[in-house]
């Protein structure tokens, strides 16, 4: 059976070239970067090279602005809580959006429990918040604005540049979670105008369990984990050398591939959107029709539930995801889909298709063949709608 992996926003396979360099740093060059002997120095050199690769890719002014972490989630925690704790004397107000990743939203919730006050901006129907909304939410207590660059569930790209201009004008620290955008569209800290930025390796053909936080020089910040002095005292613990080296390599490859991939995949994307909407009635495109990631397609199909759809696609060899509550074991469907105004009932029928470097036009053909009968079958089984 054909295998089609269409879940690159969930995670990606590690590029063989990345796996190969990782292997060297797991086995031969296995030293602890803090050791001063030859094994340690070799590891240190590799970590610093990777830091350089990341810094260059996002246009950081210096390598000292990059700290490696154990995940994108940890980088979000470090950025948001680290800024909040360090700037509490200045104020306790934070602004975010309702469509952020749970790593951001749950940090904000925790900060609320600790006495901070959080404004969660509602997005428009495409999942965007505007610079104007942000400007209106700012108070003299606002110490941090955190708005994601591109949304993981619906692919919508936020107007980060406009928002950062507002933040700059008011001298408020601005963080963006670029986990989904990095490697797919240009991410440059100066062009975006951000003070902190989150990355994760496993979304760009690097390993899981490695992230990075960019922090602009001079940004007031406190660590949130305590131990040794690694990563310039920003993140303690022996460095995941192989993971960091793999991240560096993945970044290098992503930068080489980005424009060509975006061009190719956005054609598939537009074809998928057009044909699915045409072939399958009662279908809603979620996210912005234009301002979206080049590899990202997402829908809601009325009258059916996501998990069942996923299982049936899986039986056809197609790996894909849904924001359905039933895929997460909770009763609440995706907060992103309800935030853009969909009813819970509709949100349960969501599907997210995210393409990657190895997908071909044949994968798209195969999917477009497989989907309609599945939807039809599930609708025939459904007590809802025309079922």
């Amino acid at each position: 059976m054909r295998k089609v992996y269409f879940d690159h926003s969930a995670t990606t396979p590690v590029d063989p070239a990345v796996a190969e360099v990782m292997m060297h740093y797991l086995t031969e060059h296995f030293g602890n970067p803090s050791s001063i002997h030859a094994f340690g120095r070799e590891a240190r050199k590799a970590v610093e090279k990777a830091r350089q690769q990341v810094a260059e890719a996002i246009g950081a002014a210096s390598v000292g602005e990059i700290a490696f972490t154990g995940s994108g989630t940890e980088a979000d925690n470090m950025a948001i809580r680290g800024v909040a704790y360090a700037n509490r004397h200045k104020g306790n107000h934070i602004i975010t959006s309702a469509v952020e990743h749970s790593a951001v939203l749950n940090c904000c919730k925790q900060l609320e429990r600790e006495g901070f006050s959080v404004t969660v901006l509602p997005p428009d129907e495409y999942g965007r918040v505007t610079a104007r909304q942000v400007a209106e939410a700012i108070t003299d207590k606002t110490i941090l604005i955190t708005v994601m660059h591109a949304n993981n569930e619906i692919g919508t790209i936020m107007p980060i540049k406009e928002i950062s201009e507002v933040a700059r004008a008011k001298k408020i620290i601005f963080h963006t979670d670029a986990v989904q955008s990095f490697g797919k569209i240009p991410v440059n800290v100066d062009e975006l105008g951000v003070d902190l930025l989150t990355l994760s390796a496993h979304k760009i053909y690097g390993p899981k369990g490695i992230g990075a936080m960019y922090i602009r020089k001079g940004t007031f910040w406190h660590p949130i984990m305590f131990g040794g002095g690694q990563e310039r005292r920003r993140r303690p613990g022996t460095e995941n050398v192989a993971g960091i080296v793999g991240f560096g390599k993945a970044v290098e490859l992503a930068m080489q591939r980005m424009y060509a991939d975006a061009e190719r995949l956005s054609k598939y994307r537009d074809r998928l959107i057009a044909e699915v909407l045409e072939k399958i009635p009662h279908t809603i495109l979620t996210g912005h029709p234009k301002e979206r990631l080049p590899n990202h397609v997402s829908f809601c199909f009325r009258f059916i539930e996501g998990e069942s759809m996923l299982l049936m696609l899986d039986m056809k060899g197609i790996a894909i995801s849904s924001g359905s509550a039933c895929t997460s074991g909770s009763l609440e469907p995706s907060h992103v889909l309800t935030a853009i105004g969909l009813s819970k009932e509709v949100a349960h029928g969501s599907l997210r298709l995210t393409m990657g470097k190895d997908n071909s036009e044949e994968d798209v053909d195969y999917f477009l063949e497989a989907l309609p009968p599945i939807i039809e079958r599930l609708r025939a089984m459904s007590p809802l709608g025309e079922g």
Partner: protein
Amino acid sequence: MYSEKVMDHFTNPRNVGEIENPDGVGQVGNPSCGDIMKITLRVENNIIKDIKFKTFGCGAAVATSSMVTEMAMGKTLDEALQITNKSVAEALEGLPPAKMHCSNLAADALKAAIEDYLKKQNA
């Protein structure tokens, strides 16, 4: 994640559909929670002669619906009322912990359909 039995009932669900002019109808669940089950019955001499389901829900919801119809088919109403959430889950060789609430729905829908039938009889 799911047992083979669950996957079998999900892939080849038994008794899908809706009986026309049913003797009893039961519907439970809530679309905003992501699950609705509708069971329709034909009853003769206190025996379930035919039973069909329609379900909006996850794989476990589909499988438990299918299983509960298979278990109830041909049973007396009294026997059918003995079917519990637990016995459906067991017949499916277990469900993931997060999915236990689905099995509740199936037995509940069956019960609602039987009660609907009994109510109509007494009306």
